[in-house]
C-alpha cells in the first residue's frame, strides 16, 4: 500500500522534472506536468483512502545519511486524512491549472510552474507522512519554497514580488520555531536518529510540554494563518495565480493544523490553558478575519481573509476538543475535535472551489475587483451554480456541508456551557458569540461576493461579455461543488472515518469514543434529514408555483426603478456600498482609509470615493518592528568607516581588552 503512495510521489517528482526539461516545448511541458500531477494524485489517493476507511496503519523506514535523519514514513488515519486532502486537491487543481496556464505557453516556459507545483505536492505529502524531524523539516521547507516560486509566477507585475517576499520571510521565520521545537523534542530520545518520532514518543518530559506547545503554535500557526501570524496570507493569495491560492489555502494551510495535531499526539500531557489559547486565537481570527475580509473589494483578498476566519473556526473546534480532554468531558472532546476536523475538510473543499472560481472570473473578465463585475450568472449559468454552492457552504448555511461542521462546533460549545464550571462555560459563550457573529458577517461578505459579481447588471464591458473559458477550468469546480453537497448528505460515514483520528489526537482509546459517539451522530443524522427535507419542500413549492403559473401570463420587463426612468447599471449597489453599513459600524476596529472627492459646484466635473482597509496586525505590529530594527542597524553602520588605522585600533583594543579581562580572572600571584 505505502509503496503505492511512494510511486505516486515518484510520478509527481518525475513529471515535474520532465516538465522542467521540456521547458522549450511549453505546451508539451504543460501536458506532461498536468498528467503527471493527476496520475500521481490518483495513485497516492488510493492507499490513503483505504487507510481512512479502516485499513491498518502502515509504516516504513529507510536509513538516510544525514545527521539525525532517517527516511521514516507512516500512513495512519491522521496522516491519511491530510494526504487525501492534498492529493485530492492536487489532482483537481492540476486539471484547472492545465487549462489556466495554457494561455501563457507562448511568452514563458510552463515547465517551471509545473516543476514547482509537483514539487510542492510532493513536499506536502511528505510532510503529512514524515516520521522523522529532519525529513519533516526538509519536506516542510521544500513545500514552502516551491510555493513561493508559484506565488511569484507573475513576477513582472507590480507588488507581486513584495507579496512573495512577505510570504517567504513569514514562512521561514515560522519554520525557525519548528527547528527549535523538533530539537527540543528529540533531546531526551537517546538514540542517534533521535529525531524519529518513534524514538521521541514517550521520552518527552512533562516539564517541557508547555514550551513545545507554544513553539508549535507559533510555527504551525504561521502556516495555518492564525491571527496574528496571518499577515503574509492576504498578501500572497491575491498575488498568486488563483490555482496556486486554491491549493495553498485548501491544502497547505491545513498542514499547519496537521503539524499541531501531530505534536499533540506526541506530547505527554494536554494542559487546559492550551485549549484556551487555541480558542482565543480562534475567536480573534474568526471575527477579525471575516471583518477585515468583508471590507475588501478585491475578490481574492476577501477569500484570503475568509481563510483566516475559517482557520479560526477550526482552531476553535480543536480548542474545544482539547478542553474536553483536559477537563474530562467526553462529549465536548468528541464534538469539538469532530467539528474542527470536519470543518477542516469542508474548508479545503469550498475554499479551493471559490479560489478556482476566482481564477475563472479573472480569466473571463480580466478583473478581480468586485466593483467592476456583475451579471455573470446570466452569462455563465453553470459556473454560477457551482459558485453559489460554494458561497452557501462557506457561509455555513444548511443544507450544505459548511453548516454541518459549524453545527458540531456550536453543539460542542453548548455542551461545554452546560457541563463545565462557571468560568469555562462563560468562555463557551464567547465561542458561541464568535461563531454566530462571524457567520452573520460571513453572510454579508458572501452575499456581497455572489450578489455583486454574479447578479444584477454587469458594471463594465469585460463583465458584460466575458471571454469564453475552457471546460478544463470549470470541470474541477463542478466536481468540488458536488463534493460539498456529498459531504453534507453523507456526513455520517465521514464522521465514522474521523473517529480514529479523534482517538489518536485526544489520547483516548477508540472504544470510549464509540460509547459517546451517539452525541454526534444522532444530531447529525437529524440535520441530514432536515437538509433533505429543506430541499424537498423547496422543490415542492417550486412545483406548486409552476402549477399556479401554468397557463397564465408570465412576462418580462425591466427592473422597476421606483419611477426613475432610464436607470443604468452604474446606479446599482457596488460591493463597497453594499458592505458600507457594516464597515461603518465596525469602523473602530477596522483600519479603513477613505478618500472622497465630493461633487462640487453646480455642474460637478467628477466625483470619486476610494476606500481601502489595511491589515491591523501588519500595520500595528510587524511594520513598526522591522522599521525600528533597521533604524538601529543604520545607526550602527559608522563602525565600518573606512579609516584603516582605526581598524587597527580595533585590533589593539580587542587584544588589550581580552588580556585585561584574562589577567583579571587570574588568581593573584
Amino acid at each position: 500500500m505505502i509503496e503505492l503512495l511512494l510511486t505516486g510521489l515518484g510520478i509527481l517528482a518525475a513529471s515535474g522534472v520532465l516538465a522542467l526539461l521540456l521547458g522549450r516545448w511549453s505546451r508539451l511541458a504543460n501536458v506532461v506536468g498536468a498528467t503527471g500531477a493527476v496520475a500521481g494524485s490518483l495513485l497516492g489517493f488510493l492507499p490513503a483512502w483505504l487507510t481512512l476507511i479502516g485499513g491498518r496503519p502502515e509504516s516504513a523506514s529507510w536509513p538516510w545519511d544525514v545527521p539525525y535523519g532517517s527516511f521514516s514514513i507512516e500512513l495512519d488515519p491522521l496522516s491519511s486524512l491530510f494526504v487525501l486532502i492534498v492529493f485530492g486537491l492536487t489532482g483537481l487543481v492540476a486539471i484547472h491549472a492545465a487549462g489556466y496556464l495554457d494561455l501563457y505557453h507562448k511568452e514563458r516556459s510552463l515547465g517551471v510552474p509545473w516543476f514547482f507545483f509537483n514539487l510542492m505536492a510532493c513536499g506536502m505529502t511528505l510532510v503529512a507522512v514524515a516520521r522523522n524531524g529532519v525529513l519533516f523539516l526538509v519536506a516542510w521547507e521544500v513545500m514552502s519554497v516551491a510555493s513561493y516560486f508559484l506565488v511569484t509566477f507573475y513576477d513582472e507585475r507590480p507588488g507581486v514580488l513584495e507579496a512573495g517576499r512577505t510570504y517567504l520571510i513569514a514562512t521561514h521565520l515560522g519554520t525557525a520555531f519548528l527547528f527549535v521545537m523538533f530539537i527540543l523534542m528529540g533531546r531526551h530520545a537517546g538514540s542517534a536518529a533521535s529525531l524519529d518520532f518513534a524514538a521521541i514518543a514517550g521520552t518527552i518530559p512533562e516539564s517541557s510540554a508547555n514550551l513545545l506547545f507554544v513553539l508549535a503554535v507559533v510555527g504551525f500557526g504561521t502556516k495555518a494563518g492564525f491571527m496574528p501570524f496571518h499577515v503574509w496570507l492576504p498578501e500572497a493569495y491575491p498575488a498568486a495565480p488563483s490555482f496556486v491560492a486554491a491549493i495553498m489555502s485548501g491544502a497547505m494551510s491545513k498542514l499547519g493544523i496537521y503539524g499541531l495535531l501531530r505534536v499533540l499526539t506526541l506530547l505527554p500531557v494536554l494542559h487546559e490553558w492550551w485549549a484556551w489559547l487555541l480558542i482565543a486565537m480562534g475567536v480573534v481570527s474568526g471575527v477579525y478575519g471575516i471583518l477585515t475580509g468583508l471590507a475588501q473589494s478585491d475578490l481574492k483578498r476577501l477569500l484570503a481573509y475568509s481563510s483566516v476566519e475559517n482557520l479560526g473556526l477550526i482552531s476553535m473546534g480543536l480548542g474545544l476538543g482539547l478542553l474536553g480532554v483536559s477537563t474530562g468531558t467526553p462529549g465536548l472532546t468528541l464534538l469539538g475535535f469532530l467539528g474542527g476536523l470536519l470543518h477542516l475538510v469542508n474548508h479545503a473543499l469550498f475554499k479551493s472551489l471559490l479560489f478556482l472560481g476566482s481564477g475563472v472570473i479573472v480569466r473571463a473578465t480580466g478583473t478581480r475587483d468586485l466593483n467592476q463585475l456583475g451579471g455573470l450568472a446570466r452569462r455563465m449559468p453553470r459556473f454560477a451554480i457551482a459558485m453559489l454552492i460554494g458561497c452557501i457552504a462557506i457561509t455555513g448555511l444548511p443544507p450544505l456541508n459548511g453548516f454541518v461542521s459549524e453545527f458540531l462546533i456550536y453543539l460542542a460549545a453548548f455542551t461545554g456551557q452546560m457541563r463545565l464550571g462557571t468560568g469555562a462555560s462563560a468562555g463557551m459563550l464567547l465561542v458561541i458569540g464568535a461563531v454566530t457573529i462571524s457567520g452573520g458577517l460571513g453572510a454579508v461578505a458572501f452575499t456581497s461576493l455572489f450578489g455583486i459579481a454574479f447578479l444584477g447588471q454587469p458594471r463594465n464591458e469585460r463583465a458584460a461579455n466575458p471571454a469564453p473559458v475552457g471546460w478544463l477550468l470549470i470541470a474541477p469546480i463542478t466536481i468540488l461543488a458536488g463534493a460539498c453537497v456529498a459531504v453534507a448528505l453523507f456526513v455520517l460515514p465521514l464522521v465514522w472515518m474521523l473517529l480514529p483520528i479523534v482517538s489518536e489526537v485526544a489520547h483516548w482509546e477508540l472504544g470510549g469514543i464509540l460509547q459517546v459517539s451517539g452525541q454526534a451522530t444522532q444530531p447529525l443524522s437529524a440535520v441530514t434529514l432536515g437538509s433533505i427535507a429543506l430541499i424537498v419542500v423547496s422543490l415542492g413549492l417550486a412545483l406548486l408555483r409552476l402549477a399556479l403559473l401554468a397557463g397564465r401570463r408570465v412576462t418580462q420587463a425591466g427592473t422597476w426603478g421606483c419611477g426613475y426612468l432610464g436607470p443604468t447599471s452604474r446606479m446599482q449597489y457596488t460591493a463597497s456600498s453594499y458592505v458600507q453599513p457594516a464597515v461603518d459600524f465596525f469602523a473602530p476596529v477596522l483600519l479603513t482609509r477613505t478618500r472622497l472627492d465630493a461633487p462640487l459646484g453646480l455642474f460637478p466635473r467628477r466625483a470619486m470615493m476610494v476606500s481601502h482597509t489595511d491589515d491591523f496586525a501588519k500595520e500595528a505590529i510587524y511594520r513598526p518592528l522591522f522599521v525600528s530594527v533597521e533604524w538601529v542597524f543604520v545607526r550602527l553602520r559608522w563602525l565600518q568607516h573606512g579609516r584603516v588605522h582605526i581598524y587597527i585600533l580595533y585590533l589593539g583594543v580587542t587584544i588589550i581588552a581580552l588580556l585585561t579581562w584574562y589577567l583579571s580572572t587570574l588568581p593573584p600571584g
Partner: protein
Amino acid sequence: MDFAVELILVFVLLTDMTLLGTGRLATSIWLSAVQGMALGVLPLLVAEHEITLRLVVFAAVVFTLKGIVFPRLLSRAARMADVKHEVEPIVGYSASILIGLVIVILSAWVGAAFPLPIAHLPVSPVLLPTALATILSGLFLIVSRRTALTQVVGYLVLENGIYILGAALAQEEPFLVEMGVLLDVFVAVFVMGIAIFHISREFDHIDVDQLTSLKD
C-alpha cells in the same frame, strides 16, 4: 653580558620614544634601521650556551635585513613617492611621546606583575617591559600616523618587539622557522613598498587617511 643586554634594551626603548617623537620620514626610517641593527646583536648576547655557528649566521641575517635591507626598501619607496615629511599626524608628536611614556610605565608594571616563568634563563627583568613597550608603540605608530610609510615603520617596530621576546624566550625555535619568519617579514615590507609606490602614483599622496572610499 647582562649589562650589554640591558644597554641594548634601553637603547631600543629610547629609539621607540624618538620614533614617536619624530616627524621626518628619513629620521624614522633611520631610527628603525638602528633599532634593527641593535636587535641583530641581541641573540648573541642572551644565548645561554656557547655561541654556535647557527646563532652567528642568524644574527648576521637579522642584522642585514633589519638594519640594512628594510631601510633601503623604505627609503627607496619614500624617494619614489617623494614624501619627506609626515602629514599632520592624528596625535601630535609631543602628545605621542607622553603616551609613549605611559606605555613604558604600563609595560614596566605588567613586566613586574607577571614575571616570566623561566627562572633558569639569564633574562634581564627589563626584557619583557621593553618588548611590550616596543610592540605597543609600534601599534600606536600605525594607529596615530597618516602616512603609509610611517605605518610600515610602525609594523617593523611591532615586529621588532615580538622579535625581542622571541630571541629571548623561544631560543629553541628551529632555524628554518626563524628564517621563514624573517623571509615573510621581508616580503611583507617589500610588497608594502610596492603598494606605497602604487598609492603615490594613483593618488599623488600616501596619506592613508584619505583612502576611505570603501565603507558602509
